[in-house]
């Protein structure tokens, strides 16, 4: 199979998955028991519940297009999605896409920062560990990182919150910006953002560090035993040159795909961590929306997050194929 054809295959696969996710999103509210127009519920007990008569019910069903066959509704839904229309939020009284776009940057900031930091620190520590294999620095690093990485991010976040924010007062307790702050210039604002993002990003980074560390440790260990490294040493190259030019470059290859393979669980962690720190990203919004039963918002976030993760994986896949032409039909390093 030619590379182009294979990439097309991959694209079709991801596209198909996205379609399944959209379909699920379409049918979920329709699988719920009850009829939205039997009763227009009231928010407080004092308010009278309005029972609709047949005529009114039909009016509402027609108004929302729910009297059409499911197939027609489905294609209308697809069309709306293509135009970026995710529906209208009943609670926030705004289009869902507008709300999501406003919150999205915070989540992206957090996830990206954690992704970059954990990968860089993980690779450095993993290489160190491989270098000192079976000696004390390796053993200490191995044990402590494995232990830390097994603690879920939100539990780590709680500790960070109580120790560094509440106990020592070094960091703000919640939010992404100081309320009603008057920034003198751009730098002050940036500093404030970083100050607020510090603890959430730290929680996510530490939770993901162990995985990256183990991966690069194994990868580096394998590379260090290769013949071409012996050659490099024999040529009398300096250790720095051997490690960075010869070993690390080859060891990094399998790590590149893994960076995005774990994105799904990182996003799951981010949703929880945002709630620990009341960080105004999508995760915090999602929980809020579930609690006020604002279903269009919940669905919109679910869709956006899933599509983002799938796209990131698709591009990582593509990049890996370009980086390593040896890769076969099954994507070699994916298994195990």
């Amino acid at each position, binding site marked *: 199979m030619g590379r182009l054809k294979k990439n097309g295959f991959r694209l079709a696969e991801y596209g198909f998955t996205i379609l399944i996710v959209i379909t699920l999103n379409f049918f*979920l509210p329709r699988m719920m028991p009850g009829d939205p127009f039997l009763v227009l519920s009231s928010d407080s007990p004092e308010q009278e519940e309005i029972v609709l008569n047949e005529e009114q019910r039909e009016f509402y069903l027609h108004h929302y297009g729910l009297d059409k066959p499911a197939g027609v509704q489905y294609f209308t839904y697809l069309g709306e999605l293509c135009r970026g229309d995710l529906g209208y939020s009943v609670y926030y009284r705004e289009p869902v896409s507008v709300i999501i776009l406003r919150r999205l940057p915070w989540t992206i900031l957090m996830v990206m920062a954690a992704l970059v930091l954990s990968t860089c620190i993980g690779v450095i520590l993993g290489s160190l560990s491989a270098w000192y294999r079976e000696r004390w620095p390796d053993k200490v690093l191995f044990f402590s990182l494995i232990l830390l990485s*097994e*603690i*879920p991010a939100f539990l780590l976040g709680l500790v960070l919150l109580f120790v560094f924010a509440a106990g020592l007062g070094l960091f703000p307790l919640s939010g992404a910006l100081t309320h009603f702050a008057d920034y003198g210039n751009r730098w002050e604002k940036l500093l404030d953002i970083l100050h607020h993002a510090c603890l959430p990003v730290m929680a996510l980074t530490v939770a993901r560090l162990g*995985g990256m560390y*183990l991966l690069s440790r194994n990868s580096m260990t394998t590379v260090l035993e290769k013949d071409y490294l012996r050659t490099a040493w024999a040529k009398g190259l300096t250790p720095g040159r051997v490690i960075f030019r010869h070993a690390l470059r080859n060891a990094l290859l399998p790590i590149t795909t893994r960076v995005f393979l774990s994105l799904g669980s990182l996003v*799951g962690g981010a949703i929880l961590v945002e709630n*620990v720190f009341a960080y105004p990203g999508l995760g915090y919004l999602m929980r809020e929306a*579930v609690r006020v039963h604002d279903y269009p918002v919940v669905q919109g976030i679910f869709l956006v997050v899933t599509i983002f993760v799938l796209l990131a994986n698709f591009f990582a896949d593509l990049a890996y194929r370009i980086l390593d032409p040896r890769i076969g039909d099954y994507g070699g390093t994916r298994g195990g």
Partner: protein
Amino acid sequence: MKNIPAQPVKMIKWFHDFSWSGKLSAAVILAILLLAVFAPGLSIHPHNTSTGAPLQPPGGKHLLGTDELGVDLWAQICYGARVSLLVGLGTAFLAALGGGLVGIIAGYLGGWPDKFIMRLIDIMIVLPDFPLLIVLAAFLGPSLLNIIVVLALFSWVFPARITRSQVLALKEQSYIKSAETYGAGAWYLMWKHFLPEVFPLVAVNMIRLTGRAIVSEAGLSFLGLGDPTSKSWGLIIHHATSFKGIYFTDFWKWWLLYPWLALTMMVTALAFMSRELERIADPRLGGRRFSVH
């Protein structure tokens, strides 16, 4: 591994090979299991009604203090262990059963069923499970059963992958080949040859799945979206952290700390245990069978 009576002996041998961290993990898991099984006997106070003044510090009548409604925390932790273990083991069992079956089918049949299943697994691994868990909890109601089913739907890929690779390797073994030439059918091979060989590895993987499921349930409960009728550790943490101004009081020193400790100890113990067993069950893999998840 052919004859069953050898199994307990083997397990004792395994335990001797454990490092100290493995032994410690085994002890923690055992302790929490006992806590869950004997919850009614271990807690003097009921776990669902108020038995004292609210927000009592540990000591005195209440071993670990009380929460904002005066409910004994020790009793809540004992009963919370039941919820966590139920979700964890239920998910792991369902996932191992389904995944094992799918893996055997993929490995044994080969061809397009195998290709299809492998592609499906690739996609499932990438999909973020937690957002879907929230969506389903929002729409279908957060009952424990729903949570278990959704978690199992996302977990079967790991046992399936292990089983498939095992079956692929086994299929080439001469004793399987000879059984086939003697007319052994697919079912016979599965029960007599594949399952006994594959079971230990899947069982080890089940421990990891249990841990993952417990974490997910705790996360969902922490958001306040879990099953409100069964008070898990995550739900206790949710109540504690939603208490206004808990940062500025001393209440977190028991109300938040003890469920946090229970959860963290359980999760890390399960992880270390599975790592240990993976090492012993399949020395070739060493630490390499570490999923980034």
